[in-house]
Structures are given as structure tokens and as C-alpha cells.
């Protein structure tokens, strides 16, 4: 089990570092091309309808659904 917390439990507006991406390979590569790869610094902007999150990373704003948010693990930067 990767340490840290999943993004559903992570606080908003706090600098975080991505430490684990437990999603399928396709989603993982898609996230990587958008800048969300292990080691990336990011923040959570807000909780969206349905339990998703908007992530601020490298100048991009990426909306993620609840199921994906639960597969990503982060720790405070």
C-alpha cells in the first residue's frame, strides 16, 4: 500500500505531491501528459458534483471524477 492519502481525503488549497497513481495504464498515461505524474506538485481547487476534484497542476486545471480521485495518492509537499 502506498503511504500518504488518496485525493478524496486530501485537503483543498494545500500544496501536495503525487506519490502514487493506481489507475489503469491508459488513464495513467493520460494524466502524465497533462502533468499529473508521480513527483508532480499540485493543489486541489475544489470538490465537484459527484465527489470529483479539480486539480491545479503546471498551470492546468484538470477535472477528475470520484473513482479516479480515489486511485491517486498524495502527501503534503
Amino acid at each position, binding site marked *: 500500500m502506498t503511504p500518504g492519502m488518496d485525493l478524496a481525503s486530501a485537503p483543498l488549497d494545500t*500544496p501536495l505531491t503525487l506519490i502514487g497513481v493506481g*489507475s489503469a495504464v*491508459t*488513464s495513467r*498515461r*493520460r*494524466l*502524465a*501528459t*497533462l*502533468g499529473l*505524474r508521480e513527483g508532480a*506538485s*499540485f*493543489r486541489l*481547487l*475544489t*470538490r*465537484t*458534483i*459527484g465527489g*470529483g476534484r*479539480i486539480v*491545479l*497542476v*503546471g*498551470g*492546468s*486545471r*484538470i*477535472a*477528475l*471524477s470520484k*473513482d*479516479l480521485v480515489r486511485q491517486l495518492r498524495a502527501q503534503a509537499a
Partner: protein
Amino acid sequence: MSESTRVRLPLTPATTPPPSAKACCHEIPRHTAGADAPVVALVGAPNTGKSTLFNALTGSRVTMGNWPGTTVEISRGVWRTTLAVPTCDCDNCTCAHDEEPLAITLLDLPGAYSLDAHSPDEQLTRGLLQDGPVDERPGLCVITVDASRLAHGLYLVAQVRELATRVVVAVTMSDIAAQREVTLDTARLSQELGCPVVATDPRRRTGMVALATAVRTTLADPVPDPRPTPFTDDALMLDDDRFTWLSDAADTATVAPGHDRLTLSDKVDRWVTAPVAGPLLFLAVMWAVFQLTTTVAAPLQDALARFFSGPVSGAVTSLLTLVHLHGTWVEGLLVNGLVAGVGMLLTFVPLMGLMFLLLALLEDSGYLARAAVVTDRLMRTMGLPGRAFLPLVVGFGCNVPAISATRILPDARQRLLTVLLVPFTSCSARLTVFVMLGTVFFGKNAGTAVFGMYVASVALVVLIGLLLRRTLWRTMGAEPLIIDLPAYHVPTLRLTGAVVWQRLRGFLKTASGIIVATVCAVWLLQSIPTTGAQSFGNVPVEDSVYGVVARTISPAFAPAGFDQWQTTSALIVGFVAKEAVISSWAQTYATEQPQPGQAGLLGDHIRAAFEQSSGGHPLSAVLAFMVFLLAYTPCVATLAAQRREAGLRWTIFGVGIQLATAWLLAVAVFQIGRLFW
């Protein structure tokens, strides 16, 4: 004047090197770049201003929008460039002001974050740049990169630089970067990437000359060596190498705050995508669009209707009287057919213009991408990702491009399901009929009635989606939502105006052709008698071929309360295109009681028909009719698009579902409604 064409693979662009890159004194054809013209491909991540740049360079009208997936096909245009030169040594030089003209064939490729094709539109890009024969690849790639999020656009640059091709990077969105206090040194970035980098602003058309100069200079140079990569087939190791390379380049060339500063866009997003406020705002925005559309356009529409039914019809009648054709079949065709039909179509121009304007403002502002987030949960219940909302929204404008837009979906089964659902989105052609019936039957509440049809349309998409999801699609997995949200923009007049004009022109072009053809066909069928007692062109409509066919089908609609043959015939015409429904009514009633200049009584005729066929429950019957119109086959063009994307069997399957749903719902609405109204 449009100078672009939409094409589908396989493409056979001209090869490199471009023989004309350093030549002048050539005639440049106005509409084509010539077979030997260099071919330049415009690529980039979605929503980096690629299509806007294409339009700025070619003067074309490719669909643009501030949301991912706007480009789903390849567009080709002519980019006429000039390059200032110190001297020109051609004999009898024709170049003006020491400029070398060069026409370039410019291709606008679908948006792609990478060359790892995740969806059919990304496969198009990969196919052209990487998988196709070397001698058919473009001579140069212009890659658009968003300055406000540089690293996320450079992954594609890294991959394209690994190919043996010339690259020029066009940096866009510098204004957004400035708002986020990000500064970019294009010269340093150029050094790091090993290719020219040019700052541009396609929305305001700045940097176009610098881009042309960079492209032409690079075209004249030999193909550069590909970027060296680790000698391995391990995709993860290659990815690591690319990310290190692009991170180094971005870090060296940019100065940015230590963390992402919260922008106004972010503050707005906290409300727009919030669990309760988001859906409420979405509904309020949609309601406002339809309310504004109907209330503002109504007076203009009335004025135009009076103009066509009065002065225009009168003038044509007078003209025909002068040439002794008054009272003949020519007058029937021209006054009751073409003037009434085309005039009726033109009365909807203010309505459509306003509708397109409001949707363009929503697109250009960036709101529609947020709407996809808000509706994701709803889409997920049908097993579809939030991205599927985007083609469905396009469907509210026109179903045909919406079916093409399903290519942004990565999974074939999701695409097929969306293709089958698109026809249930209420296109703008149906809006014209809803507005007319709403005005005739619901008066001041017309806007609410029309909005109700859009709510019904969304409900139909969800219900049919759920039905299919739980039966034929029950084994389909759901894709998680990953959507790249564009920054909010203040819509520019030029961009919004161009989008509105492009769509309005498309509507008029399609509708006018269909209307004229349908009017002529309807007139012909109404002129052919079914008994020997009458002659061609001199027969009551109900005794014509048109009337007899409609009367034969009419009883099927008795349980739905609209079995008048005039109503049924409009539905038959509507199978070809919904744009023709009103014109066929205008033609039928005017032909039945030829009173030139009184086409404005059309509403009274329709009201009387529903009153009679419903046994005194016209409101229930007209609601049933509107529901039928909403659910049954949109038009033959949509069927053709469905066949192209899903094949003949699935198209027939879709038509079956549409007709069955439409009839059952119409009967239910009438039978339940008559208990109350």
C-alpha cells in the same frame, strides 16, 4: 469565401522538400495552393487555439470553440504567405515590395495531447505524422503550445521532435500566462527545443508574419536530426526521458510564481462546478438561453412574417399578373410554394442567430467544458464519460456534426451508444417548429414550452441511454473523467461573430436547398390527381397523391390525437428534414385555400386541425405532436452521418428505436394529457 475543405484520411499531401520555398514570380492560385506547394500540418493539444490559428492564417471558417474536441476532422486550407527579401533576381519580377509570395497547404489536425492515440481523432493525427508513408507526411509541423501551461503542451513537441520532420512551435495564450504572472523567453525555449518558437495570438491575429517567416525559413532548411532518445522499447523509460527533457526546457524558458496562483477562473469554478450550485446554474443558463431566444426574436420574426406574406407575395403576384400567369400553376408554385416556404424559413433567421450567438458565447467563454463536469455523474449512469456530453451539446445545434464529434470518445462501444443517443438531442431545426407551435398554442408561455421540450430531450437521452446500458451495453465499463479545463475567456467579437455567421450560413445553406427541393417535390405531388376527373395542377390537395398518401398513414396517429392528414404529411416531409415541416404546412394550407397574402393565417389553420383531430383536446395533441417530432428521426443527413460512423445495421436499429419511442410517448402524452386539458 471559404478556402478550406474538410477531408478524411487517407491524405496524400505534397511531399518535401518544397521546391517553391525560395522562388517567386509565380502566380498563386486563389483557391488552391497547387500540387507542388509545401504542406504544413497544424497540430497541438486540444484547446490551444489551433483552429483559431488555422482560420487566422487561411481566412477560413473552421469550427472553433473554447473546449476540447472542437476539431474532429482534418481541414485543409491555403495559407498565402509573403516573405520580405532584400533582392529578387527573377526575370521580369512580379513580386511587389520585395516580397516573395508562397502559398502553403495548411492542414488543421484534430487536437492531440500526444502521439499515443487514445481516440479516433487522435489516431488521425498519429496516422498522418507517424504511421503513414514517409513521403506522404507534411513537410513541416506547426505545434501550438499554450504559454500558460507550457509543460503540458510540450509532451507532443517531444514526441514529434523524435520524428524526422521540421517543427515550428507557435506559442499561444500569452495573455492568460501574463495574468498568471508566467513569463516566457521564446529564444531560450527555441534553444532548448531545437526548433523555432514564435509567440502568436490567433484571437487577435498578432504574430502571424513572424510565424510565416519562421515556417518559410525552416521549410528551406534541411530536415533536422530527430531528438536523441534512449535506445529502448520500454514505454515508461521513454516517457521518463521525455518528461525530463520537457521539464528542463520549460523550467529554463519560463519564470513563474512558486505555485499556481488562484485566478478569477478558479474562483468562478468553485461555484460553477459545486455539487448544488453547479447543476442549478447549468439549468438556469440553459433556461435563460431559450427564454431569451424566444422573447427577443419573436417581434422580429412577426415583422418578417408580415413582410413575406404581404409585400413580397403581393409583388410576385403582381409580376405574374403582368406576364399573364395569374391563377396558373406557376403562381401556385411561386407564391404558395417558394415564397411561402423560403419566407417562412427566413423568419427564423433572428431566432437562429440569437440561439447560435448565445451558444457561441457559452463555448468561447469556456463554460461548456465546465458543463461537462457538472453532467459527468448523469452521463456516468449511462456508462458514458463526461466527455460524451460535448457531442450531445453539439447535437442541440445540429445532429450531423454531433455524430462526427463522437470521435473524441476513446471507446468504440461508448461511441456507438453516443451515436444512437445524439438524434434525441433537440436540434435547431426542431426548435423552429417548437417555437411556432409554442407561440400558436401557448402564447406568452411559449418560452417555457420550448424549454420544456429541451428538458424532455435531456430526459429522453438519459432514459434511452439507461435502457440501452442495462440491455445491449450492460458489459461496458465506465471510463473515469479526465477533462482539461480551459481558462475562461472574455469572448471576442471577431471569434463569436465568425462562429455565429458560420453556423447561420450553414443552417441557411442546408435549409434553403432542402426547402426549395422539398417545396418543389410537395408541389409536384400535390399537383398529381388520383382520379381521372381532375387534371395536373388543378386538383384539391386531399385528392392529390400527396393527400392520399398522408391520409393512408394518418390513422396510425389517431391514438396520439393528431391524425389530420395535413399534420401527418408534415411529419413525412420532416423525415427528410425538420426545416421543411413548417414550409410544407404553409404550402399545404395555402394550396388548399389559395388566398395570396394570407399565409399569416397558418397558425389558425394548424390550431383548427389539432382542435378537430383531438376531439377538443388541442393542447394535449400538440404536446404529443411536439414529443413525436422530438423523438423521431431528425433528418436524412443525420442518418447518413450515423451510417458513416456506425454502419447500416446500427442506423436501422436507431431508426427503429426512434420511431417506436416517438409513437409510444406521443400516445402516452395525449392519452394522459386529455384527462387534464
